[in-house]
């Protein structure tokens, strides 16, 4: 009988039911979209921000009384293990050396050229990236070096460092607007051989996640794990990253709050109107001996069904909305989060129930004698 009353009641008020569910769907869909995005945004936004360069540097500690110090390339495997590996998304070791090309002193940088596109994706390359981490024959030439020495694409040139010389072919010309424009970039191994510093590294650029591992903590872990190293947080980028993330999350929370308030008011208005329309019905039920608890139970069940139906529909709609935003803003999909579903249903239920408390209370307080009075 319980279900008959509820299902017949729904069938009798299809338009009002649709409006109630629609208002829950509206609120729930935005909560679902925002919660899915909130759970995904730190990673998405982090990777977007990290596209503007590494956020952590590893430098060798320079012992007192010496000018030069290096990190062992073998020790860098620490970055691929345990807790540190979870935070580090990519890293590129470098070795700098002042060499001579066509009689001109030029800074040559040896690095993992295969990783550099991830560390520095904004570099503009004419030509192509030299392939292979141990490529000993090809080089990227800074745009200013290319102009000054006439080193166009495909040209070959000789590099001298002390007694060692090596020939390279220009694979690409790089434009960064920074120091790289005046440098020549080759593989790390090539510079190590030219400078006779096998297995040595002068600097490591690290791109790391920030939302789960504070960079300062990560730097400390690296210092402990790589002998003779010093972790240095690139403060500007890290601060900008956390500042932007905080602002995005605050904005999302504010928008969600406003939308939920609006949805709550719509539900309150709909429930109040519904109960006013059903005053005689409630009065009759009470006259027939229905307790206030039973009346509240019937209406609560209706509210529960509206919440669940609206919540599930809202979540599906919100997930589609999150996907749309994900593709438009981050150019990638947003994964469905079970937590987002729970958050959506919970918040939809809280808003619906909170908005229904007053109308429900009025329903249970309806005086059947007044409602049914015919004298």
């Amino acid at each position: 009988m319980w279900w008959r009353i509820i299902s017949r009641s729904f069938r009798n008020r299809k338009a009002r039911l649709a409006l109630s569910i629609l208002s829950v769907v509206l609120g729930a869909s935005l909560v679902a979209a925002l919660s899915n995005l909130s759970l995904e945004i730190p990673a998405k936004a982090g990777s977007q921000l990290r596209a503007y360069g590494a956020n952590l540097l590893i430098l060798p500690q320079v012992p007192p009384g010496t000018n030069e110090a290096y990190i062992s390339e073998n020790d860098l495997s620490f970055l691929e293990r345990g807790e540190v590996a979870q935070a580090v998304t990519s890293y590129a070791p470098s070795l700098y050396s002042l060499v001579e090309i066509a009689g001109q002193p030029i800074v040559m940088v040896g690095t993992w050229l295969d990783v550099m596109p991830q560390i520095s994706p904004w570099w503009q390359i004419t030509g192509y990236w030299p392939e292979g981490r141990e490529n000993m024959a090809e080089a990227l030439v800074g745009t200013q070096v290319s102009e000054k020495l006439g080193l166009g694409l495909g040209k070959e040139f000789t590099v001298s460092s002390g007694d060692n010389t090596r020939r390279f072919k220009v694979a690409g010309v790089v434009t960064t607007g920074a120091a790289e424009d005046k440098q020549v970039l080759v593989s790390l191994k090539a510079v190590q051989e030219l400078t006779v510093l096998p297995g040595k590294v002068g600097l490591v650029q690290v791109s790391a996640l920030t939302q789960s591992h504070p960079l300062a903590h990560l730097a400390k872990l690296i210092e402990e794990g790589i002998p003779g190293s010093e972790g240095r947080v690139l403060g500007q980028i890290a601060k900008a990253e956390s500042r932007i993330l905080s602002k995005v999350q605050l904005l999302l929370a504010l928008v969600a709050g406003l939308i939920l308030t609006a949805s709550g008011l719509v539900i309150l208005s709909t429930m109040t109107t519904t109960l006013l329309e059903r005053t005689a019905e409630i009065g009759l039920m009470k006259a027939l001996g229905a307790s206030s608890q039973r009346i509240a139970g019937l209406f609560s069940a209706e509210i529960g069904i509206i919440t669940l139906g609206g919540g599930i529909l809202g979540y599906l709609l919100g997930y589609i909305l999150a996907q749309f935003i994900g593709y438009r803003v981050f150019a990638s999909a947003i994964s469905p989060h079970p937590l987002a579903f729970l958050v959506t249903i919970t918040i939809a239920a809280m808003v619906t129930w909170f908005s229904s408390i007053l109308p429900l209370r009025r329903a249970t307080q309806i005086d059947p004698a007044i409602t049914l009075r015919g004298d």
Partner: protein
Amino acid sequence: MINSELSLAVEELTKYYAARVLALDNVSLSVGHGERVAIMGPSGSGKTTLMNIISGLDRPSQGQVWVNGQDITGLTGAELTRFRRETIGLVFQQFYLIPYLNALENVMLAQYFHSLADEEEARQALVRVGLNDRLYHLPSQLSGGEQQRVCLARALINSPQILLADEPTGNLDKANEEMVMKLFHERHQEGYTLIMVTHDPDIARMADRIIRFDHGRVVPEDVVGNSSLAKPLL
């Protein structure tokens, strides 16, 4: 001391509404088990107020009401609700059926609030009031007489001790009025105590006794003293 033979006893009942409107003024009356009583009086004379208090829908300002020996004036709200569903059968002038439930479900609704809905029992109740071919019709698909018969089936489904009817034929034509009154007569023959508010002297004459109200008071000289004076229509 209340006589246990009485189905209803009302003593010095007074009811004020807001702004000190006196609806019942020191009313005392009694109704025996199985008795059929008509309450008459002009609009605003306190008939419906009395019915509301007897049925536990309203509370008196002063005085006491005993139903089958139980003083209902001291009951809590929850106890009054229970009293209504277990002791009283109500029939209203405006029918008051749930518009989205069919005839059968409207009867089952009273069962549901009482204890458990029993579809077969509800079906039998409607068959007894001649609605075997209207079980699945919505109230809007039934005539006034048919709706009132559904209300009567609903009022009787939980075997109440007293049947209270407030102008049960007030919205019916003559043919339906006779049909409904015949059903009330049959229920009375089965032993139900029947208290009915009516404006219609012909309906009132069916009763064993007529109690007249005026300005919230019982008019003693208008009481028709015994069942022999009643002139049943049916």
